[in-house]
């Protein structure tokens, strides 16, 4: 089912929602990978629950994208790794717990801020419902990061430096300020990317205040506006591994699918 001309989103909005959906798809994957490897049972349970929430949210975002004319098979099972528009930090599986916590905390919060900025009527209630899930995700992340910032500040800071540029690229370039953000201009979102970038960093500055962890600065050339890919919300042509794409698409277990 495709939207008629009146209800069709602008292309930039479809790309925006696609990037949020793919980021959530990869969040589900990364939570799943870590749900039996956390330092204690509560972390494992949280990982399993967060993964389920993310996949549930992906299902709804894909449903809207399909109504906008995006092919369902392409969304779910027929994509090359480089066609996923997930936040760049989620391209890789984190090798250690503090790294993983920073990876998913930054990605989940950024995705939520982008979702929360949407003002289009197709999202009425849906974003609010997603927020009910995200409240618990973000609370858990912050609590864990506060503890890790005390116990392993160097690991947390190293992960922040590693992932911050990719997350800023996912949020968008600093040049998208008030009056210059095409999504605000299209009345699809209610706040500019530059505002979201500021709110995002400020949250972590406050969270790590009083610890030895320093949050990377916001610089206007990260991402470089001239190299930034609006469709995949990143710079460069990196992507998830083929192995991960196969898992997301259920290639190995396709014979068990009930049609």
């Amino acid at each position, binding site marked *: 089912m495709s939207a008629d001309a009146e209800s069709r989103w602008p292309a930039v909005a479809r790309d925006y929602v696609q990037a949020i959906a793919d980021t959530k798809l990869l969040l589900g994957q990364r939570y799943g990978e870590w749900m039996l490897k956390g330092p204690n049972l509560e972390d494992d349970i949280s990982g399993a629950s967060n993964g389920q929430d993310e996949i*549930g949210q992906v299902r709804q975002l894909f449903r809207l994208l399909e109504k906008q004319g995006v092919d369902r098979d392409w969304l779910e099972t027929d994509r090359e790794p480089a066609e996923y528009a997930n936040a760049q930090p989620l391209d890789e599986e984190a090798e250690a717990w503090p790294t993983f916590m920073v990876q998913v905390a930054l990605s989940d919060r950024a995705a939520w801020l982008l979702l929360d900025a949407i003002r289009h009527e197709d999202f009425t*209630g849906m*974003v609010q419902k997603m927020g009910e899930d995200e409240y618990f995700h973000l609370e858990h992340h912050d609590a864990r990061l506060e503890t890790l910032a005390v116990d392993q500040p160097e690991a947390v800071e190293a992960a922040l430096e590693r992932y911050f540029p990719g997350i800023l690229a996912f949020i968008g370039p600093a040049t998208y300020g008030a009056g210059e953000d095409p999504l605000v201009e299209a009345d699809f979102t209610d706040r500019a990317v530059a505002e979201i970038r500021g709110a995002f960093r400020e949250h972590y500055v406050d969270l790590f205040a009083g610890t030895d962890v320093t949050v990377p600065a916001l610089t206007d050339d990260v991402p470089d506006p001239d190299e930034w890919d609006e469709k995949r919300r990143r710079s460069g042509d990196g992507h998830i591994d083929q192995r991960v794409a196969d898992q997301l698409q259920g290639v190995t277990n396709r014979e068990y699918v009930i049609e």
Partner: protein
Amino acid sequence: MSANTAGTGTAGFSIGPEEDADEFEQELWATVDEVPDPHIPVSLVDMAMIYDIEVDAGEVTVTMTYPCMGCPAYDMIQDDVRAVLRTVRGVTDVTIEVTWDPVWSKDMLTDRAREELRDAGIGL
């Protein structure tokens, strides 16, 4: 806070057929009321997951929601609704529309659901 905030709870919201629903619509509601939530011993109607049932020349549209967006029984529940409605004489097609407006809350549960949940040892 998102600009996309929907109403929550029971204000202006009612479960079941409208007062002026004809016999056929009432039969459809009664039929869907036979479908249980697979997680707990309460029907989808009493769980306030069914927001609306419309019928147009045998083509039925059910508008429904879920308490949990990541419900693992998401498709199974829709299949159950389709299956039970297709047994009703006069129904030629069933379409399910999922909505999040208003956002489901336990305040919407019917009194019967509250009683059944309490009897099952589930606290609200």
